[in-house]
């Protein structure tokens, strides 16, 4: 059992707290470029994700796990399709709780 590489639940605003660390978040893809994907976070901020692109077919929401590079970009390690019926508001509230009062349950 090993808790050495936890990934913090972040939304756009919380990303800046974990620069250089492993994070996870769900984004809605709004555009893509060579080598990077631009997405909208669950709190409606823009996040750029660099690294290997996710393999299509893609759903509306994607979870990306990777290292936070700046306050609005992530270097992706893993992508997961999170479907089209995902509720971003719930996830957003979870991010706030997981970084606030209940942080000790997660990191």
């Amino acid at each position, binding site marked *: *059992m090993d*808790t050495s590489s936890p990934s913090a639940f972040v939304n756009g605003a919380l990303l800046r707290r974990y620069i250089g660390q492993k994070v996870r978040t769900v984004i809605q893809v709004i555009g893509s470029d060579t080598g990077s994907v631009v997405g909208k976070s669950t709190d409606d901020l823009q996040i750029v994700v660099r690294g290997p692109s996710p393999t299509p077919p893609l759903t509306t929401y994607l979870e990306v796990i990777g290292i936070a590079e700046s306050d609005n970009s992530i270097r992706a390690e893993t992508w997961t399709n*999170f479907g089209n*019926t995902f509720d971003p508001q*719930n996830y957003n509230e*979870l991010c706030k*709780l*997981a970084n606030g009062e209940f942080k000790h349950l*997660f990191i």
Partner: protein
Amino acid sequence: MFSSSQFEPNSAFSGGGFMSSQPSQAYESSSSTAKNREFQGLVPVTVKQITECFQSGSEKSGLVINGISLTNVSLVGLVCDKDGSKVTEVRFTLDDGTGRIDCKRWVNESFDAREMESVRDGTYVRLNGHLKTFQGKTQLLVFSVRPIRDFNEVTFHYIECIHFYSQNSESQGQQAGDVTQSVNTTFQGGSNTNQAAPLNPVMSSQNDGNGRKNLDDMILDYLKQPACTARQQGIHIDEIAQQLKIPKNKLEGVIQSLEGDGLIYSTIDEYHFKHVEL
């Protein structure tokens, strides 16, 4: 031996739409276990909680029932390092973002084998299993593995962990009840009316009856200021005493009753407080 039908569902909680592809009885019991601590239900946890529980060896969050080694837990995470080389057992690691735990699944019937086949590395799954310690290492003996189809279940699982934890922390004197309320109300479209906190400034026993604004109100007013609510770690009782120019010993009793009423809560330690925001 590991079939999930053994679990008697303890409530009518049907899981909404999250588990439309799975029988809901597997973990519905956990949401109503708060009343009966002896009930050996399925506890939703994060790997971090499991690690902490084992390290401290204490009874936290109801994780310890009948001793540490026999507890049923429910986890959600990514499968990694799946090793299906043996015929009778499948081993893999579950990574739920808070940590990793080794898992083992005995494959005795074709049903089990089919279930494990659909689980690959990188699949998000819902696991139900027994926690077992073997030679100092903790392992999860899994009896139920289901790939997740609706990913709202991932969000839901973590929220359920928080909920279960805060319900069980009530008895430890924290403001868990109010937090649970606010957790619930946060998801009702953002309406934040916290019905559990009766605002009752008059009932303070600290009112010395000479018409002076009582201590409760003074403390609350101070903590309600935006400068104070913005501070994550709360305000130290010394600071409150300084700012209100009231001796600390007078404040202590009032703070306790305010905490008991659910109007303030302690944050990083028992001396820092914040106003419960409605």
